């Protein structure tokens, strides 16, 4: 392979030369490990974000002032400060508040993206609930449903259709945002790529493969979101 292109300069030297590609592919396991960590953080983070977002979304759509004010504050704080600071706060503050408690960086990543995207998802859920006519809730309540029961059986199933496309887009952002744990040595795909590239200087090929990894995770979801969007528009 190398002999074949031996007289083409940019394939032999420079940031994208063949020897660099070979070195990266010999260590592809490092990237693969990182990919698994990213998948783990993303899936558990998404589960947390969905749970938080649903609870907060239902709270912010309620007619009681206290839960509404609480969720407003939560959403405004998390949407208007960088995720990186929140992760750093968790990283530094949790061991101080609970001395002796060992928190793996992965757990900080899960908590960080979960709480951050929980705020965004709660706004999506609230918009979904509010898009269902007020009469639906009144009808359900008049039929003897409790507020929670009406939400569970009447409002949320209908809101799901409206909520699903923006929710999928949130999942895409969440996957991309798991990369911030690279900055606190989280062992994810971004970190694995960056530390490998930094050791030998093979930045070009490594970053292309890292980018490919994120793209393969995100692109199918992005396509799925668009399909859903088109379907709801037709219906």
């Amino acid at each position, binding site marked *: 392979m190398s002999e074949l292109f031996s007289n083409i300069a940019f394939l032999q030297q420079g*940031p994208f030369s063949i020897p660099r590609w070979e070195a990266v592919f010999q260590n592809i396991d490092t990237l693969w490990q990182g990919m698994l960590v990213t998948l783990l953080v993303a899936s558990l983070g998404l589960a947390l974000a969905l749970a938080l977002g649903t609870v907060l979304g239902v709270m912010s759509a309620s007619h009681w002032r206290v839960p509404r004010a609480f969720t407003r504050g939560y959403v*405004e*704080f998390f*949407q*208007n*400060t*960088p*995720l*990186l*600071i*929140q992760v*750093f*706060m968790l990283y*530094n*503050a949790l061991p*101080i508040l609970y001395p002796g408690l060992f928190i793996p960086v992965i757990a900080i990543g899960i908590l960080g993206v979960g709480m951050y995207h929980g705020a965004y998802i709660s706004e999506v859920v609230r918009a979904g609930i509010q898009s269902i006519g007020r009469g639906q809730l009144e009808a359900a309540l008049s039929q003897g449903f409790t507020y929670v029961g009406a939400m569970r059986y009447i409002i949320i199933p209908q809101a799901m259709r409206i909520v699903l496309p923006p929710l999928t887009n949130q999942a*895409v952002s969440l996957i*991309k*945002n798991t*990369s*911030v744990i*690279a*900055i606190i040595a989280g062992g994810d795909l*971004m970190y694995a790529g*960056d530390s490998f*590239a930094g050791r030998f200087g093979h*930045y*070009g090929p490594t*970053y292309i493969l*890292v*980018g490919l990894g*994120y*793209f393969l995770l*995100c*692109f199918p979801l*992005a396509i799925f979101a668009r399909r859903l969007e088109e379907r709801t528009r037709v219906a």
Partner: protein
Amino acid sequence: MDVVAANPVIEMLSDPVFYIGLWGGLLLTLQIAAFSIVFSFGFGTIIGAMRYTGLPVISHIAVAYIEVVRNLPTLLLILTSYFVLGLSAAWAATIGLTIYTSAIIAEVIRGGLNSVPTGQWEAARSQGFSFLQSMRYIVLPPAVVKMIPPIVSQFVTVIKDSSFAMAIAAYELMYKGTILAAKYWRPEQIITIYLVISLIYFVINFTISMVSRRLQRNLSIGRGSIGD
């Protein structure tokens, strides 16, 4: 009095270095964000227009750009600008953010143009308006109204994501904070530093969010809702 003097948080907060450091960081954060927004607006408009034309090769390039970039982490784009393109830290952050934000703004612009029904176009052209005239007087006014709020709220994302620049040691607010945290290493000091930084980001971004929300409300009065 002794208790107050011995309090490490108060000691830190009465040190001018603390404020000078954060102020310098804030200026660089705002500079990175401002340049990124201006560049992305220019570049994003071009990409968005390319896609809107629907011409074979031109729109395909735009679609490929948008689809690839939107599915990559901003941090990766910033690191690539720094290590592969070899830019200085502040410029790498600016260009990395621009590459990403342009794709988002391109979609906003296309979405705004598409929100004007084709009937409006046909009506304008049939009344003898040229392409540019129909664009200028018929299509753009309602389309721009639709574009402004999402573009303004994208400012918030850019300011927040500029904190990723700490990964390449650009001296913006977040990185300045971590440097201070090395000097003031006591737990309560570290927490105070991050709280202060959060507050600074919050004040800026919350103000922008409020402006965006107000624009959305004000601009839609008596305008928008065409074709509904």
